[in-house]
């Protein structure tokens, strides 16, 4: 390993430690345990993959921990794999920690076998020892250490066991107190000769941080990125012999992977005692129901029902309470304090900025509860089953099960839903999922529906709401079906997904899941909502200082011919327009534009008198499908990196909303 600069010994310059691991190995838990809240969440430079960096202090060192994306291998199949290996090659961390799941050691050691081909010292953290034990596996960590030639630390990260040992081992290796002599997987003899040949042909053409041996191996494995890199580096004449060799050994990729697994099997045999009789585990029992094509759907619907029940029975009263006791109190106080200043100033501050900030504040508990429930489902392993069960339905839209989680997250708020599409491997499938996201009714739109349906339809509200939501779901599937040819271009994506073992949720992991999603919501949606809320206020105030004659009202009157078609007057149209700031704005706008009449009765009476049932239903449908809120638009733009697709999404939703609204109204008039 490389020499360590003297400064790092004294803890001045942090030691860089990369944490690698396959998905479901508990890598994030280990990272969270080591770094706590000292972590910084950002993006990998130029990429939309999340990067987490945190610090940990041992007795003698400061460790800068970098959480690499969870990957099964390092063969540039996905962006994540590219990021992980580029980091190790280019940034040359002082140490790489591989977190492996002890309960499925064979497959988890595959990543290790690939990492050992890279020039970085490695320590193995053997996580989930408790799960392995429950399955009757006996793992001799000393034997494993001897077979691998690496330090191995047994851990149960979810119970904070072994985490300190891991830090101590890292320290020992970095300070060169424990010698490293890793045993590397052997290459099959017939491939050795081929590799040697390639190696010689490449000669000095391999660029700096890449080890020539490794580049030769990756070429033989058909690695697209490395092949492209070498093809452009060599001139055509020099590349041709290399290309010929690779073409003749196209099937080497299978042999190389098999070779690694043979190496792993030998190590596992030396260190692991398998149970004689395989037990029927909890996972098997639960999966019998959870993955059943019919039963699984009912389980999923039941769980989602509970999630919404919790969100709305706890979250919505909290939201109202915050609004009444915090936002309104502050508003009154502000108004009183600003009584002597110009009217526009208190208007802008109270009705513009504070109203926007209030939306963000009062909406946070609703989202916190929803994210907590989803966090539990994700952490226990249930979400993977949901993806499995929903896969066949997603196929209607040319997508597969992996798109289910982001769409489900979108039920809370479309913004994190759009961001979560990063878990989808294929860029085109990702784009399609993002385009469908605005049709997922977010909690804000559901809240509007829950308030307006009883006002419009009284006791029949529940049927109206169910009808509107069913139409929403139908539109989602219909749009997916209609768009997938266009967006995916007939491309087919492999659905390969691990179903991890069920385990008890780790509260710290869930806490961080909720915290990070909320932070993202407040940061992204928050700033946009406050700004837009202020802007809308300005538009409603200027130029006359009167809501009924301002620019906003003008805009409403200007589109009122359209409203006539839909049976809606200008005030309803303005409510729709302001829902672009934040969907719950619909309610706020309506209550401002429909002032309580002299007869009393508030919003309810004023609204009911001004609208026919058919138009009311059309309004509800349009409200659910109208142009996405600005926060969602911003998220879409950020994730698809294209104005074209962002505008497409906005126009698409506008057209859908108008056409469906018109249809519902016209059909409604027949009854």
């Amino acid at each position, binding site marked *: 390993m490389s020499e360590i600069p003297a400064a790092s010994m004294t803890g001045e310059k942090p030691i860089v430690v990369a944490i690698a691991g396959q998905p479901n190995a508990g890598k994030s838990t280990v990272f969270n345990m080591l770094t706590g809240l000292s972590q910084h969440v950002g993006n990998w430079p130029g990429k939309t993959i999340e990067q987490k960096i945190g610090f940990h202090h041992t007795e003698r060192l400061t460790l800068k921990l970098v959480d690499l994306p969870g990957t099964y291998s390092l063969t540039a199949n996905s962006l994540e794999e590219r990021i992980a290996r580029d980091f190790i090659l280019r940034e040359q961390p002082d140490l790489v920690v591989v977190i492996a799941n002890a309960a499925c050691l064979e497959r988890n050691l595959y990543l290790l076998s690939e990492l050992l081909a890279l020039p970085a010292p490695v320590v193995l953290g053997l996580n989930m020892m408790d799960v392995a034990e429950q399955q009757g596996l006996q793992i001799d960590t000393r034997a494993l250490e001897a077979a691998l030639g690496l330090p191995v630390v047994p851990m149960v990260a979810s119970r904070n066991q072994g985490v300190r040992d891991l830090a101590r081992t890292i320290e020992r290796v970095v300070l060169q107190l424990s010698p490293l002599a890793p045993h590397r997987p052997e290459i099959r003899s017939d491939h050795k000769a081929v590799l040697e040949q390639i190696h010689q042909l490449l000669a000095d053409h391999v660029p700096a941080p890449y080890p020539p041996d490794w580049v030769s191996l990756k070429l033989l494995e058909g690695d697209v990125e490395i092949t492209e890199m070498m093809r452009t580096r060599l001139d055509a004449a020099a590349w041709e012999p290399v290309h010929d060799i690779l073409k003749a050994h196209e099937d080497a990729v299978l042999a190389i992977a098999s070779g690694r697994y043979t190496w792993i099997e030998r190590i596992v045999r030396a260190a692991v005692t398998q149970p004689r009789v395989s037990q029927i585990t909890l996972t098997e029992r639960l999966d019998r129901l959870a993955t059943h094509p019919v039963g699984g759907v009912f389980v999923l619907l039941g769980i989602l029902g509970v999630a919404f029940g919790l969100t709305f029975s706890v979250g919505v009263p909290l939201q109202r309470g915050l609004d009444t006791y915090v936002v309104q109190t502050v508003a009154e106080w502000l108004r009183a304090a600003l009584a002597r200043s110009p009217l526009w100033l208190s208007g802008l501050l109270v009705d513009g900025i504070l109203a926007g900030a209030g939306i963000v504040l009062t909406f946070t508990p609703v989202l916190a509860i929803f994210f907590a429930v989803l966090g539990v489902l994700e952490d226990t392993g249930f979400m993977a089953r949901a993806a499995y069960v929903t896969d066949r339905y997603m196929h209607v839209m040319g997508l597969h099960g992996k798109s289910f989680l982001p769409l489900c997250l979108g039920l809370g708020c479309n913004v994190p839903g759009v961001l979560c599409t990063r878990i989808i491997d294929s860029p085109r499938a990702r784009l399609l999922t993002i385009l469908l996201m605005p049709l997922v009714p977010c909690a804000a739109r559901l809240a509007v529906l829950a308030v307006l349906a009883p006002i419009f339809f009284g006791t029949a509200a529940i049927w109206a709401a169910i009808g509107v939501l069913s139409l929403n779901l139908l539109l989602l599937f219909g749009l997916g079906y209609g768009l997938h040819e266009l967006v995916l271009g007939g491309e087919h994506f492999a*659905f390969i997904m691990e179903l*991890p073992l069920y385990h008890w949720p780790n509260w710290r992991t869930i806490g961080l899941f909720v915290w990070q999603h909320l932070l993202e919501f407040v940061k992204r949606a928050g700033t946009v909502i406050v700004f837009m809320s202020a802007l809308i206020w300005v538009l409603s105030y200027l130029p006359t200082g009167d809501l009924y004659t301002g620019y906003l009202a003008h805009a409403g009157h200007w589109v009122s011919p359209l409203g006539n078609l839909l049976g809606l007057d200008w005030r309803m149209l303005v409510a729709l327009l302001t829902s672009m700031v934040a969907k719950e704005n619909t309610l706020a706008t309506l209550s401002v534009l429909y002032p309580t009449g002299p007869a009393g009765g508030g919003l309810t009476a004023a609204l009911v008198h001004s609208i026919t049932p058919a138009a009311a239903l059309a309004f509800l449908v349009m409200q659910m499908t109208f142009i996405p809120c600005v926060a969602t638009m911003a998220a879409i733009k950020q994730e698809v990196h294209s104005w074209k697709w962002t505008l497409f999404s906005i126009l698409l939703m506008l057209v859908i909303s108008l056409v469906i609204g018109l249809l519902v109204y016209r059909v409604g008039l027949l009854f």
Partner: protein
Amino acid sequence: MSDLQPGVRGVVRQLYGGQAFTGRLSSLGFTLGAEITIIRNDGHGPILVVVRGTRMALGFGEAAKILVEILAESTDSERIHE
């Protein structure tokens, strides 16, 4: 593999498809000679299979690209009739 009933154990004999696809499958443990057990196969939709101690979901089309030699039908009746 897509034709196999739940409970069937087998050995992977061949992978069909492009280099990227077979490379990905083999890195996940579906190497030539690897033992698999079918957990769930409803004749359409994704298939659930155990390979190297891990439960994997595979699309029906993807499973059809894995040629498997049958070793034994499981005698554990509880496991067959899910």
